[in-house]
Each structure stands twice: as structure tokens, then as C-alpha cells.
């Protein structure tokens, strides 16, 4: 069958099981969008307000489902607007295929209108990328892009398609099933046996897991291992949601803003079993101080992660689901009574410290607050602390997917939100992309067809709030919770602690009325100051089948605690601020 390149793209996307694409049209993809129009009953295109939003939406769609997210943009500025979204997906190992148009082959390299070398630009932030200069290679290149995106450690792949390739005609033979990911090598027996020996000999084992557990679908295996050897578990930011937050062996996220108990437990352990995690500097603190007292077993699908950030005593490359299951069989059942007693002590100490910080915050006046949050007249019980916001929203949210932006609100949500099942916490962990949340939440809501929650701050929300237009036009059931403290809180926190309170460019002092803004976009909205008001707004928001913005007043000097100072170690942990 002789069809156009544009039609080949659409047919291949459908063949690969893609039901939804996110994107934005333009001159060099106009032919492709024509085919999307003609095939609109078979593939859904979500028009965003900006290509960056589309890239985050494809990312959110992929994170929520595990499927490959697809984004389409035109050449030049359309393509470069994808860059942050692609980098975000790359750092967090999210499977994505980005398709860009480009100027016709004959105009490439001449600085033609809206021409950019997007393959060159995205080389360091994609698993691989392609420019298709021969239409006969188009379909197979797209198939290969899907294959690379979902094989091994997932990641983004970009395919750049010049306009003349979209217009040209070629024979197309559809395949009857999507490409199968490349087989993952299994962990070698001898190494797993060695790992089991280390585990059996350990007195204080600690499991540190990351996002690899989620992408490797290994939650059940992980829990089985932890329960058999009775080891406490902590995770990286990317690991959140792999294990239910209330699992008795789960101590929460560790690291810079991790839970006191998990960070200390790791430090006091004699063996860290790292599973699908990469020892990011945010998870370990100072590397010279890290791992002084414990041995490390590191299992990951990506051999390049072994010994990259931390030298493990035993590095094992392999499929995490299989490796953890086999390791569980080899390991002896243990009770580790003394160690579990120590963990219980750490948990109660954490509780005390958290309670103390909470009370201090309730008592604190807001005199210095630049944000006229209007909380001063409220009784202590009614004041909205960040954790209260998380608690109230989560009580209404059921098993909704939660997306976050980046900053203090992200850490509060990571610490506090009760997660029940994998793929329900979408956050930009590696790149730390402010503005990630709106797109990601939209992508997740479209993927799941359910109410989705976005926690954001007034800073992050300001970056991509244009996507409110998308949420409203698509009638997306989205509850956007803005923790509005009038400042760029995370940087302000650092300025308070390390820069003599020089609040350089972190006081927003904007006069934006988010309620009016949301209404102008066609969303519902309310501003809340007290717990009661938030209860009412949350009930209304989750009952509403559309986009609802809750603007929550938060004190500008609320801190994310505990905190390991950047470059510091567990010895420097800060749990209260005078």
C-alpha cells in the first residue's frame, strides 16, 4: 500500500499501541497533523498550550501507565520547547518517543526558517535519537524508537522527520503487534549467591530502593524480600509508591529531605541492599562520609550505574524483578530482633521530632511573612501547615494519582502523602523541573481517566500555568493544590540557613489572584486559609468533574525538615530551625 510519510507515522503509532499523543502543530508537521485529523477516531491528540506542557504530559502519561508516552512538535522552537521535558524523562528513566518535524532535507543546514539541529541538541538527553532522511526507513525507525524507549532501563528517544519525508509516498506494511523490548539479562547465580551470603551474615540489613522497582514491576518481590529478612526499607524520591507508605517495614524516603528514621537507619546498618536505585547525591549526602559503616550490594538493570556514584562491595547487573525473587529464595528468614527494636526507637524519635517541629510551627506568628496569608487571626488548630494540607487532600483523594511540581511542596508531599500502589506519585526527581506538574498531571489524568491531584507551589505553578487552558478544554478532573507562600520557598530555606537571610530574588511579591486566574481559564477555584476552609474546598473539588484550583495560604517560613545540608552528611542532619 503506497501511503505518505505522515500516514506512516500515524499508522506506526497506532500499530505500537499508542492511543493518545500530546503535541502542538506547526509548519513542519502540518502534514502529520492532517493525518492525525483523518485518523482522529483511532488516535487521540491532546493539544496543549505549549510544547513543554505536551512533553511533560507525555511523560506523566508514561509514568502513570508504564506505556511509552508520545509527544509531537514542529521544528525549531517547537522542538527546543521539548528539551526540558525530554531531559526530565531522561533523568527519571521514563519511556517516551518525541517526534519533531524539520525543514525539508534540501533546506537542512542552511539556517532555514524554524530550523534547528534538534538531534544534536538532544543527543545528551535521549537514550538515542534519529533523523529520518529516507522514507523507506521511516516505519522501522519509529518502531526502533519504541523498542529503545522501553528496553532495559527506559528513557526518551527522539525522531526528527523532515517535512519532505512526511509528504513523500512509500510502501507500508503494518505489523500486527508492537515491538517487544529487548530481553533483559538475568543476574548471574554466583553473584546472587554471594549477595545472599552477605545478607545472611548481616545483623542490621537495610534496603534502599529506587524507581527501578516501579519500572521493573518488582514491588511484590521487594516486599517479600524485606519481610523474609525482616529488614527496614527506605527509598529515593523516585522509589516512592513502589511500597505502600503504611507497610510496617517502610521508613519512608531517605536523603536530603528524607525521613529521620530511614536516613539514620541506613547509616547505622551494616549492609545496604540497593535495588533499582542510583545513589544520587540527594539520596546519599556527602559521599566521603557515606557508607563508612556498611557494606553495599547494588542491583540494577543498568550496569553503568554500578560503581558510578558509590563503589558497591557487590554490584549485580540484571532484571530486578527476577534478581530480587531469586535473592529472596536464597536468603535465610531472619527476625533481627535487636535491629528492629532500634528501628522502633528511631521511629518514635522521628515522631517526637516531627511533633515538636509541628507545634513550633503552629505557635509561630506570621509577622515576618511577606505573603499576606491572613492566618494571624486564626486559632492554632485552624492554621494550615503544609502537612495538614497533604493530610486533608489525601483523605479526599482516594487512590488518585498524585503529581507534584518541584520545591518545598514536593518534599512535603514526598514525606507525608500516604501512597498505596505503584505509579501513583509522579514527580521530577532527577532533573527537578519546576513546571513539570501541570503537564504531568494532565497526562496522568488522561491516561487513567480518574481524578488526579497536583501539589504545586506558587513558584512552580507560575512556570506552566498556561496548561490550565488544556485541563479546562479537555475537561480534565484535576485538583490543583497550590501551596502559596509568596516566596520561592526551597531557595529561601537555603538562604535562611546558608546565606544570612539574604532573600535574593525569592520573594515573589506578585499580586496574582489565583482564584480569578483560574476562573479566567474556566476552572473553578477557591482560596483557603484554615483547615475548615480547606475541608470544604477539597470536598467541592473532588465532587467536581473538572479542573479545580485550591489556593492554600502557607507561611513563607515553613521549612522542609529534616534536612541534610547540601554536601553534608548524616551527622549534620537538621531537624528543627530556631
Amino acid at each position: 500500500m503506497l501511503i505518505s510519510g505522515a500516514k506512516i507515522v500515524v499508522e506506526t503509532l497506532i500499530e505500537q499501541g499508542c492511543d493518545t499523543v500530546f503535541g502542538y502543530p506547526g509548519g513542519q508537521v502540518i502534514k502529520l497533523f492532517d493525518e492525525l485529523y483523518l485518523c482522529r477516531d483511532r488516535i487521540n491528540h491532546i493539544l496543549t498550550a505549549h510544547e513543554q506542557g505536551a512533553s511533560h504530559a507525555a511523560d506523566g502519561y508514561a509514568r502513570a501507565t508504564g506505556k511509552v508516552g508520545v509527544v509531537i512538535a514542529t521544528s525549531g522552537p517547537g522542538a527546543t520547547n521539548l528539551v526540558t521535558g525530554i531531559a526530565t524523562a531522561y533523568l527519571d528513566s521514563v519511556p517516551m518517543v518525541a517526534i519533531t518535524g524539520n525543514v525539508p532535507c534540501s533546506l537542512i543546514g542552511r539556517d532555514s526558517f524554524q530550523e534547528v539541529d534538534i538531534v544534536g541538541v538532544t543527543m545528551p538527553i535521549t537514550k538515542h535519537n534519529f533523523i529520518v532522511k529516507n522514507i523507506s526507513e521511516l516505519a522501522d525507525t519509529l518502531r526502533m524508537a519504541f523498542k529503545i524507549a522501553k528496553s532495559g532501563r527506559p528513557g526518551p528517544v527522539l525522531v526528527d522527520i523532515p517535512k519532505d519525508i512526511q509528504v513523500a509516498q512509500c510502501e507500508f506494511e503494518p505489523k500486527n503487534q508492537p515491538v517487544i523490548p529487548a530481553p533483559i539479562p538475568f543476574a548471574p547465580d554466583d553473584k546472587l549467591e554471594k549477595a545472599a551470603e552477605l545478607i545472611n551474615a548481616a545483623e542490621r540489613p537495610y534496603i534502599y530502593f529506587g524507581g527501578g522497582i516501579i519500572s521493573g514491576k518488582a514491588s511484590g518481590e521487594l516486599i517479600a524480600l524485606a519481610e523474609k529478612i525482616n529488614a527496614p526499607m527506605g527509598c529515593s524520591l523516585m522509589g516512592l509508591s513502589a511500597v505502600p507508605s503504611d507497610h510496617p517495614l517502610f521508613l519512608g524516603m531517605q536523603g536530603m529531605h528524607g525521613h529521620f528514621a530511614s536516613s539514620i537507619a541506613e547509616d547505622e546498618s551494616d549492609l545496604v541492599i540497593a535495588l533499582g536505585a542510583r545513589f544520587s547525591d540527594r539520596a546519599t549526602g556527602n559521599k566521603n562520609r557515606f557508607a563508612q559503616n556498611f557494606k553495599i550490594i547494588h542491583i540494577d538493570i543498568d550496569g553503568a550505574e554500578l560503581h558510578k556514584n558509590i563503589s558497591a562491595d557487590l554490584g549485580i547487573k540484571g532484571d530486578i524483578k527476577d534478581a530480587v525473587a531469586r535473592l529472596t529464595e536464597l536468603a535465610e528468614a531472619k527476625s533481627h530482633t535487636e535491629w528492629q527494636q532500634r528501628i522502633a526507637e528511631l521511629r518514635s524519635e522521628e515522631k517526637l521530632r516531627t511533633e515538636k517541629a509541628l507545634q513550633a510551627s503552629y505557635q509561630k506568628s506570621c509577622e515576618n511573612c511577606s505573603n499576606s496569608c491572613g492566618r494571624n487571626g486564626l486559632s492554632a488548630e485552624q492554621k494550615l501547615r503544609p502537612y495538614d494540607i497533604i493530610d486533608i487532600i489525601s483523605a479526599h483523594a482516594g487512590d488518585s494519582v498524585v503529581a507534584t511540581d518541584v520545591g518545598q511542596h514536593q518534599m512535603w508531599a514526598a514525606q507525608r502523602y500516604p501512597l498505596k500502589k505503584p505509579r501513583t506519585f509522579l514527580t521530577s526527581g532527577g532533573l527537578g523541573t519546576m513546571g513539570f506538574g501541570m503537564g504531568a498531571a494532565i497526562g496522568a489524568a488522561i491516561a487513567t481517566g480518574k481524578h488526579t491531584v497536583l501539589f504545586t507551589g506558587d513558584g512552580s505553578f507560575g512556570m506552566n500555568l498556561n496548561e490550565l487552558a488544556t485541563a479546562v478544554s479537555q475537561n480534565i478532573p484535576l485538583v490543583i493544590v497550590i501551596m502559596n507562600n509568596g516566596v520561592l520557598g526551597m531557595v529561601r530555606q537555603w538562604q535562611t540557613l546558608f546565606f544570612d537571610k539574604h532573600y535574593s530574588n525569592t520573594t515573589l511579591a506578585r499580586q496574582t489572584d489565583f482564584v480569578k486566574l483560574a476562573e479566567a481559564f474556566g476552572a473553578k477555584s477557591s482560596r483557603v486559609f484554615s483547615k475548615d476552609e480547606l475541608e470544604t474546598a477539597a470536598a467541592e473539588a473532588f465532587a467536581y468533574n473538572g479542573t479545580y484550583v485550591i489556593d492554600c495560604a502557607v507561611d513563607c517560613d515553613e521549612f522542609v525538615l529534616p534536612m541534610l545540608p547540601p554536601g553534608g552528611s548524616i551527622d549534620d542532619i537538621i531537624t528543627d530551625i530556631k
Partner: protein
Amino acid sequence: MDQYVIGVIVSNVSGVLSRVSGMFTRRGFNIDCLTVGETESSGFSRITVAFRGDDEIKERIVQQLQKLHDVREVEVLNRNETVIRELLLIKVRNKAETRQDIMTAVEIFRSKIVDYSPNALVCELTGETSKINAFIELLKPYGIMEMCRTGIVAIERGDNCLKTVK
């Protein structure tokens, strides 16, 4: 720090050199030299990279190279079992009072004079890096006008080959 030599077989496609060299830049690995050229099969090119570092850096470089889609085969070459060669072209001043000394050096190093003009001599020399360095040092006093070297190529002794898979 030891010098390591890695042989890399890559698909012969546009952009592959950028991908490989870009990986070194992005990950902060310093390289001494990198050469690329054709192989016995037209679908593949061979890259030879030399760098200084410890065992851990070497291992990280190999792992990162293996992750690149266009990279087919990576092997750290054992220096004792490998023939390593580099080519030097060097232009020195041609003066009556030093000409004979240069000729002697050329002869002893088994170099060749490949261009002769009233004011300059161009010498060609093949050998291991240390030999090339020694030759350059020797010619310095005579006035080096310009020089270029290819960087190393390396191939294992015996019948062991860097396989081109697929």
C-alpha cells in the same frame, strides 16, 4: 595513572562520532586521543580511544560506551598483547648547519623525509607514542614549524578480533 586503550566498533552511521565523543565530554572523562576509520566491513567503523585513569574510570567508560545504541562492541585492549601505532607528520626548518643532524635523527628513528624545500623539511614517522614523543623532543632544537599526529590505532596480536556483531 595508567593509560588505557579501548577499541570500539560502531555502526557506520551519521552522527556516531558525536555520540561517542559527546559521551566523554558529558561524563567528564578526559581522553588523550580518539581516532576513527573504516573497518573490513562497510557497515562498521572502528574508534580507538586512549585515556588516562584508574580501573574504576575505565570500567565506567566501558559501561557508558556499551549503552550507546550505535556501539556494537567495546574492548579494553591489553597493552602487552596489542600493536599500537601512531603517525606523525612534522615540519622542521631546513638550514645548512642543522640539516645533517636532522637526517641522522630521521635515519635512526626510521623516519622518512617526505617533502624537501629550501626552507623546510617534512618528516613522517610511525610508531608507538613514546617513540613519536622522543623524536619530537629531538627535533625541537632545530625549529619545529608545525606538526600533526593522528592519535593511535591499535589492534590485538594473534587471531583475537574485535567482533562486529549483527
